[in-house]
């Protein structure tokens, strides 16, 4: 059940982010200044974390989405759904370990 809660919460979070994201991208239609102004905020530390959270949410939602699809399609996956929950978390950890250092480096300078 907890994976379902996670899936639902991340789904909603991504949805609202997507709305905002389309709106801000729409600013490119207004003027370069306006866009760059808003996008500039994304480069502050606070937004760095939000950005990281977004990636995390997508990664979790996507991996668990795959798990759900697998469970729907194969009896093996259905019977091993608990192990697959672990697989989702492990996959998630790997993605985040790969992504976070790079992302933080980009955000805060460094090498």
């Amino acid at each position, binding site marked *: 059940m907890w994976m379902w809660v996670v899936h639902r919460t991340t789904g909603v979070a991504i949805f609202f982010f997507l709305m905002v994201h389309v709106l801000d991208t729409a600013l490119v239609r207004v003027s370069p200044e306006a866009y760059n102004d808003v996008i500039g905020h994304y480069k502050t530390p606070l937004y760095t974390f939000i950005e990281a959270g977004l990636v995390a949410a997508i990664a979790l939602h996507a991996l668990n989405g795959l798990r759900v699809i697998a469970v729907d399609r194969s009896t093996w996956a259905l019977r091993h*759904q608990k192990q697959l929950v672990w697989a989702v978390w492990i996959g998630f950890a790997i993605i985040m370990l790969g992504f976070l250092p790079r992302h933080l480096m980009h955000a805060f300078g460094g090498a």
Partner: protein
Amino acid sequence: MTATAEKPAEVGAIPTMTVTLKIMRHDPDGLDGREPGTDYWEEFQVEAHATDRVLDALHKIKWEQDGTLAFRRSCAHGVCGSDAMRINARNRLACKTLLKDLNPAKPIQVEPIKGLPVEKDLIVDMEPFFASYREIMPFLMTSGPTPERERLQSPEDRQRFDDTTKCIMCAACTTSCPVFWTDGQYFGPQAIVGAHRFIFDSRDEGEWDRLEILNDKAGVWKCRTAFNCTEACPRGIEVTKAISEVKHALNTGEI
């Protein structure tokens, strides 16, 4: 032979201990100065054996301490489906849950199953649950003249729906399903199990009528594969698998 006879699993040799049960009460009559319909927690302590069931502990309370405690039970060995309740935040049958499997050092929390209206203490209104079951036309449907002898069925065909024939309609699954909690419009896993038992019975010819019903808004597509139902089922029925097979039948048109 004799070696096993001397094993310590024997009844009578087990020491007693004190366990605390924390029970969610609901008083519909409003006795002892309470408002009618008050919910409150109440703790009881009973002497019990580790091998006693939660049902035994509840009986001890009812019989020795507080006769007003209300719960349903009948068979006391997990076959009648009367006593599904939430024990330590999981749906189980009180008569199939041994104290020793619950860490009796801590208070054992007992609540009514969720998602159905509570009537008194651990008793809920089962009518909505049975109504969903009736919705899915849970009876054999056949056409043509009745044969004189039995309708034949190979052991393999019989095996296909064996799992879902075991259901005792305890509602542990349906009332553990988070989708059922949210709006109650969902038929719930038990109704799907009940339908599965006929859909995959080679003798039945009403499968598409039933699938049609389950294809509806309140049907299988509401299931979000939360697996609570499978984990709750005291009969070990693979509920999510049954639901998945129904989805598969609807998607492929094959049974």
